């Protein structure tokens, strides 16, 4: 490696001279560390909350400090990621909020004074109690995210009297995912009902032969236990991957991984082209389509619904039977033993004596999808036609041990729902559901209720909107934080007076941040419980510092995104820092001040006397939802509390809750909803057109050319970043790697950037042409691994445009790009989703 330079010669000589002068000492052995040193380490079972996934972990406590976080290998998929390994950086963050704060400046200004707990709690309680006494409890909304009092917090607010427990999932998994999946597999009534979200199924990466990563980057994103782990194990077992993404992520693998650099916002087009290839080449197993799906259902040409149905009973359940065609004629599916026709049109006699030509469901789909060829898809998505064809072929070769990832944090475009629907349909046609190497049902341990409270009769805001707001008939009634903002602004259906946020950063995490901030100004009171600073905390009247997960006991947990039903608990490793308090303590103090003494005694009296054990016992006693064999292998409550994580067995199955009992690749529930919306003239109806047609996002409407300095913004997780980033920002254990990756930069295609005269490190202003007054400033990194129309930024790494909170954080620079800050306060049609990337941004260089 190179030749000897003069400098090296000299250095060698000097060092040798030094050694000579000193004489050669005896070898100095490194310090031997004995088992006694390790014996001083105390181990505590925790569920990591460096993101939201609660990966089972073990905290090492040494001399009263958490000094290590490692995976709890009590489950077959025990794993933690780099965020967890750096948890001490969040725990001992010198800028953590560790005393109650009361606002002294204007809302949003971030000027507070320290307060005692009794002063802060009294202030919150006085307001909440007054509103309750006025009979207006519903005007108080509880917005949880990183709650430190899981299992009890929602019960408390229901007991208080509000139906508005406002989940964050409408900006993540809660809007298009349940509808798109539920349309095919059931489980949602397709109207105002939350259905199967991210937690419903897992990809069996471990045994998959081929997979399409789209809308999700398994390695870099969250859910290390088990998804990150199973993905890695799959790679180890020879799983091949194609990444369909405007940016090539390293986390999917760096060697021998195909990349399809798709234009942002065109996933629907790609999926339609892929479906076209699959249908045209008959890349499906006919037997599978006949037995599991409704491909052979005869469809009425006018209504789009099954031409005739009858009710049948199967395994004690009433199902909808439908007409099919065979070589011997037309009959009901349940009565037919022979081969049903998958394609073609058949004459069906109607009850009035007339007859009508009915296509099969599959034929209906083939015809509707005909024009969306791979050639067409390639043109829209900027992908190579050959690559789309190759992906279809590879899926066919690998099926059913293959998958198209169903996405995550996937509320991005007006048409996100259609993308989810297509992914589910293609996976269903390929037959991957319930199969080894495919996509399988997650297990869960259903627990008894830690606190059982009466139901609130009054409908929450989302239920009202589902009924009366024509733009939101498919809103998720559990996850509706942006619809709540709309309610604050419009005072419809009723006024919202108090927002109680527990670890939820609504401003940083949802589209239309500036409008959201405006709404928060209108509240009579705003409370934030959080150990970390963020955009939303800046608007609080009262800030209550809760303990991090390492500093608190929690209720039992039985729900993970894992095919294995799993049971575990987070235990307190160390005492809370400063004045911060565990969540159940905070809740009980509020309960004592707000509820009547009788109510408090009834619901919290036992907790006051006996502590967490009262909740744990109730939860454990009520365990159900697992097989008898699994139940028999459950550890005792004490064993769980001592740190044992229990996992059940992997079951290769999938739940199907459709009316027909079939995987409805032709989604009849959607047909009904679509027709109903069409009948009322709903403008958004096309977004749930049940046929495989292209609808597209807002941003591609009218096929407008992008200006030279105009981009389609996208974000992705850095493996050391999370959501809006509270735990991973300001964290020096993670920072040097984030810096090495230029994670605070925006990434632009090199050739494109150079054509604009940009070079690495240049600073640019970024703005949405529709909201030009809000400007982000970020540094540019030119990259060959980004598609030309794309402006890529890591999500939740930088402070963004609304960055004044970062003044509280010594290790967090100002600026950077968070698309939520620059976007309009828009909703995806029908689902009220969060179209965060459905816009363009322009850039201009700062000299």
């Amino acid at each position, binding site marked *: 490696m190179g030749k000897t330079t003069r400098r090296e*010669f*000299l250095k060698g000589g000097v060092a040798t001279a030094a050694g000579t002068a000193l004489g*050669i000492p005896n070898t100095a052995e*490194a310090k031997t560390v004995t088992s006694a040193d390790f014996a001083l380490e105390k181990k505590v079972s925790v569920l990591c909350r460096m993101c939201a996934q609660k990966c089972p972990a073990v905290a090492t406590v040494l001399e009263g400090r958490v000094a290590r976080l490692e995976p709890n290998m009590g489950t077959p998929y025990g794993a933690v990621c780099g965020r967890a390994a750096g948890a001490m950086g969040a725990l001992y963050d010198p800028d953590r909020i560790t005393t109650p704060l009361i606002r002294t400046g204007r809302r949003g200004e971030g000027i507070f004074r320290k307060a005692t707990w009794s002063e802060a709690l009294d202030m919150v309680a006085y307001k909440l109690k007054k509103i309750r006494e006025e009979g207006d409890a519903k005007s108080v909304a509880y917005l949880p995210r990183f709650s430190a009092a899981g299992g009890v917090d929602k019960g408390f607010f229901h007991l208080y009297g509000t139906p508005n427990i406002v989940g964050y999932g409408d900006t993540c998994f809660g809007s298009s995912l349940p509808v798109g999946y539920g349309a095919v597999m059931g489980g949602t009534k397709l109207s105002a009902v939350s259905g199967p979200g991210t937690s419903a199924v897992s990809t069996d990466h471990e045994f998959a032969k081929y997979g399409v990563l789209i809308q999700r980057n398994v390695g870099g994103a969250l859910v290390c236990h088990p998804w990150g782990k199973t993905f890695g194990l799959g790679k180890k077992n020879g799983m091949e991957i194609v990444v369909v993404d405007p940016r090539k992520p390293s986390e999917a693998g760096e060697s*021998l991984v195909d990349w399809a650099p798709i234009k942002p916002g065109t996933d629907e087009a790609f999926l339609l082209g892929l479906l076209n290839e699959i249908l045209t080449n008959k890349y499906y197993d006919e037997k599978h389509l006949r037995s599991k799906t409704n491909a052979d259902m005869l469809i009425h040409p006018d209504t789009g619904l099954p031409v005739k149905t009858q009710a049948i009973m199967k395994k004690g359940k009433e199902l909808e039977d439908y007409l099919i065609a065979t070589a011997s004629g037309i009959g009901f599916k349940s009565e037919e033993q022979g081969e049903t026709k998958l394609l073609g049109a058949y004459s069906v006699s109607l009850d009035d004596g007339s007859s009508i030509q009915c296509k099969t469901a599959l034929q209906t789909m083939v015809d509707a999808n005909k024009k969306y060829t791979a050639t067409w898809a390639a043109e829209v998505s900027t992908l190579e036609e050959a690559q789309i064809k190759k992906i279809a072929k590879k899926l066919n070769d690998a099926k059913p041990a293959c998958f198209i990832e169903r996405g995550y944090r996937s509320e991005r475009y007006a048409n996100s729902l259609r993308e989810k629907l297509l992914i589910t349909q293609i996976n269903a046609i390929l037959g991957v559901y319930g199969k080894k190497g495919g996509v399988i049902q997650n297990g869960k341990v259903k627990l008894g209720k830690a606190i059982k409270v009466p139901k609130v009769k009054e409908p929450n805001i989302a239920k009202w909107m589902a009924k009366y707001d024509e733009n939101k008939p498919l809103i998720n009634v559990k996850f509706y934080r942006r619809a709540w903002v709309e309610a604050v602004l419009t005072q419809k259906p009723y006024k919202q007076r108090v927002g109680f946020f527990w670890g939820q950063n609504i401003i940083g995490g949802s589209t239309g941040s500036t409008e959201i901030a405006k709404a928060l100004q209108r509240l009579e009171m705003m409370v934030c419980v959080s150990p970390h600073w963020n955009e939303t905390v800046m608007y609080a009247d009262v800030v209550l510092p809760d303990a991090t997960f390492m500093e608190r006991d929690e209720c039992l947990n039985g729900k993970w995104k894992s095919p294995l039903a799993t049971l575990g608990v987070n235990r307190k490793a160390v005492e809370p820092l400063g004045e911060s308090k565990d969540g159940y303590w905070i809740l009980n103090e509020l309960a004592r001040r707000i509820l009547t003494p009788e109510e408090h005694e009834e619901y919290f009296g036992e907790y006051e006397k006996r502590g967490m054990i009262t909740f744990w016992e109730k939860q454990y006693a009520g365990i159900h939802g697992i097989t008898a064999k699994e139940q028999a292998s459950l550890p005792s409550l004490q064993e769980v509390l001592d740190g044992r994580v229990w996992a059940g067995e992997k079951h290769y199955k999938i739940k199907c809750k459709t009316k027909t009992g079939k995987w409805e690749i032709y989604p009849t529930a959607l047909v009904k909803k679509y027709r109903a919306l069409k009948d009322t003239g709903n403008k958004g109806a096309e977004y749930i057109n049940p046929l495989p047609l292209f609808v597209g996002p807002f941003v591609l409407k009218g096929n407008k050319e992008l200006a030279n300095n105009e981009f389609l913004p996208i974000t992705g997780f850095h493996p050391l970043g999370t959501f809006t980033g509270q735990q991973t920002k300001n964290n020096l254990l993670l920072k040097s790697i984030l810096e090495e990756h230029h994670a605070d930069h925006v990434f632009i295609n090199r050739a494109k950037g150079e054509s604009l005269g940009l070079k690495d490190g240049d600073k640019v202003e970024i703005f949405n042409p529709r909201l030009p007054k809000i400007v982000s400033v970020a540094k540019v990194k030119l990259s060959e*691994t980004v598609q030309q129309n794309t402006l890529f930024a890591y999500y939740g790494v930088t402070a963004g445009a609304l960055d004044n909170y970062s003044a509280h954080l010594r290790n967090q620079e100002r600026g950077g790009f968070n698309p939520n800050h620059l976007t309009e306060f828009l909703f995806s049609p029908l689902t009220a989703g969060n179209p965060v990337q459905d816009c363009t941004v322009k850039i201009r260089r700062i000299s």
Partner: protein
Amino acid sequence: MSVNMKCYDTTPCIRCFACMVGCSAENRLRLQRDERIGMEKSVQSKLGHQSHLTPKRRELGVFPDARQVTAFHHCNHCEKAPCLDICPVNAITRRTGGEVVISQDPCIGCSSCVDACPFDVPVVTDGKAYKCHGCYDRIENGLKPSCVNVCPTDAMFSGAKEEVLKEANKRAALYTQTTGKEHVVYGADKVNNYVGTLHWVTIIPKEDLEAYQLDTAPSRPAMQFREVAKSAGVVGAAAIAVGSVGHLIYWLGKRKEKIMQEEQKNV
């Protein structure tokens, strides 16, 4: 105790950096345990010299045939560790398990190890040299190295050399078969005479050795000279030291001459 080996397998790695953060955190635990610097204090500095496994990411290729490649930069615990051989104060030793360890107490910060290492591994901070110690303290107490311990995907594994090699070769053969591209276990066979075999091996497609910055001819020619100096004994070394000083004087004279010439030119 058998000789230990660690393997990094690029295929199942999801680039989550748990290994790297875990390393940096574990060394903070050691600071608390051995140096009385509490975790709450040590997390307030980056402490680059306590991160013994770091990423070196670069981009290769041209869109759309492009990718990021993350090289893992770390001590390989070479069979013929040049750092150990060159250290003038014998502050670098090999544990019975094969880990090459710098003891900071006797280290004089002369940077000889930095110069000798063909992989650019040791760093000198505040007059002491630092590098991966192979978590010998953990290993000698029956634990896995911290990077292996936190790896979620079996991309890093460790154990007795024979067992690790067996698993590594098995994986390489499987990948060769599934991808049609030859995979190798870098460091399992002698890399060259300068470093010998490595105690930290890497499973990788052969065509990507350079992409991952895995050097197939690691050497520092200057060091061979120093090696001679050391083995020739004090007299020889002194002669070299004198020679060096002589050369320094000669070089300074030449430099002065050159500067004067430049100045004249400028005038």
